[in-house]
């Protein structure tokens, strides 16, 4: 869509800021062509890019098990879930594009290590039970984070989140069902399920971000109604709902404290799989180049690819 060049008159600017503040205060949505503060736009691009990157990097740990799924049923489910995550990435990249940043630019930044994705995807999937633990805990934590984002002040982001949240509940339930089957299986299967939960619990809690007093972006994001609840508030909610769910699984949740030093190390790039994830992402992008080139050649030959 064409964009309108705005005047930069100072009174204009103040009036626009006031209109923006009033819309946010009234719980109205900000839409792509509305005036918005530069910092609001930048903050949204940062958060949405990180979110989109997480969706597509998150395909890797689970895709690792597609060829080894124990039944055709489980394999079909896992393929559908991984495909959904690709879709989530695309919804979010196109929502981010409404802010004037191209998908290409965001992917370049991901590949260059200049934008982040969720720390959770830097952990390895060691056993089949990890696929269950990811669905239950990682998708579960994501849902807890994302449901309030459906009311985010930026319209395109909120709409993408509505679509994503609808799809996430299948992700969580298939993981829970998978763990339940293992938990009720042989002693070895039960132990495998418990081990997966023991390993994924802490990284899942870290998905909510640093404690409130250390969370740099939080206060401003909440004032802008991008975020609706603090990190610790969401984390507490997730812990509360997980306890009874673990009981019903016949599994236990670890006790203790979150190791924030580990979190910082993973963010710095020193997690178990950081390098592997980004190397695989780059390789997939490079190896897909011929497909993109072929599509362009086909479009050119058939005189389409309009408009541009």
């Amino acid at each position, binding site marked *: 869509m*064409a964009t309108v060049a705005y005047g930069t008159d100072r009174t204009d600017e103040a009036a626009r800021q006031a209109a923006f503040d009033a819309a946010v205060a009234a719980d109205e949505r900000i839409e792509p062509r509305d005036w918005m503060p530069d910092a609001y736009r930048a903050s949204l691009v940062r958060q949405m890019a990180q979110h989109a990157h997480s969706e597509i990097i998150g395909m890797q740990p689970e895709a690792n098990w597609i060829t080894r799924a124990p039944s055709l049923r489980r394999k079909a489910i896992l393929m559908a879930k991984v495909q959904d995550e690709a879709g989530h990435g695309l919804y979010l990249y*196109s929502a981010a594009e409404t802010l004037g940043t191209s998908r290409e630019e965001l992917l370049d930044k991901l590949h260059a290590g200049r934008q982040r994705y969720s720390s959770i995807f830097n952990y390895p999937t060691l056993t089949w039970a990890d696929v269950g633990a990811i669905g239950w805990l990682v998708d579960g934590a994501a849902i807890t984070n994302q449901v309030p984002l459906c009311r985010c002040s930026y319209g395109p982001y909120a709409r*993408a989140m509505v679509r994503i949240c609808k799809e996430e509940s299948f992700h969580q339930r298939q993981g829970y069902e998978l763990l339940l089957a293992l938990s009720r299986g042989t002693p070895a299967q039960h132990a495998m399920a418990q081990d997966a939960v023991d390993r994924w619990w802490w990284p899942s809690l870290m998905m909510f971000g640093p404690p409130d007093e250390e969370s740099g972006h939080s206060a401003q994001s909440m004032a802008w109604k991008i975020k609706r609840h603090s990190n610790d508030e969401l984390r507490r909610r997730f812990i509360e709902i997980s306890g009874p769910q673990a009981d019903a699984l016949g599994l236990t949740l670890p006790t203790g404290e979150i190791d924030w030093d580990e979190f910082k190390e993973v963010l710095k790039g020193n997690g178990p799989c950081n390098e592997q994830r980004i190397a695989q992402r780059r390789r997939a992008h490079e190896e897909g180049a011929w497909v993109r080139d072929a*599509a*362009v050649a086909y479009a050119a030959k058939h005189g389409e*690819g309009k*408009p541009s």
Partner: protein
Amino acid sequence: MTATDWPLWEVFVRSRRGLSHTHAGSLHAPDAEMALRNARDLYTRRSEGVSIWVVPSTAVTASSPDEKDSFFEPAGDKPYRHPTFYEIPEGVQHL
């Protein structure tokens, strides 16, 4: 056009026969045919649609949010366009 600047398409999905197409989102594709196929995979993985339109995003002309007050104002002072504007005696039926 190179492989990195595929045009953007707006996707509209008719969820059921009898309903109109509704904007679902957007996507990049090299041509209309690929845009349709990608739209099917992206927006109708759970049978959300029975028909899809794809429209080049550049073909959309939008009203300006800056002029929204003056642009939509003419309708504001015409309450007589609504049935609730008229007073009808109590008891009159089918009106």
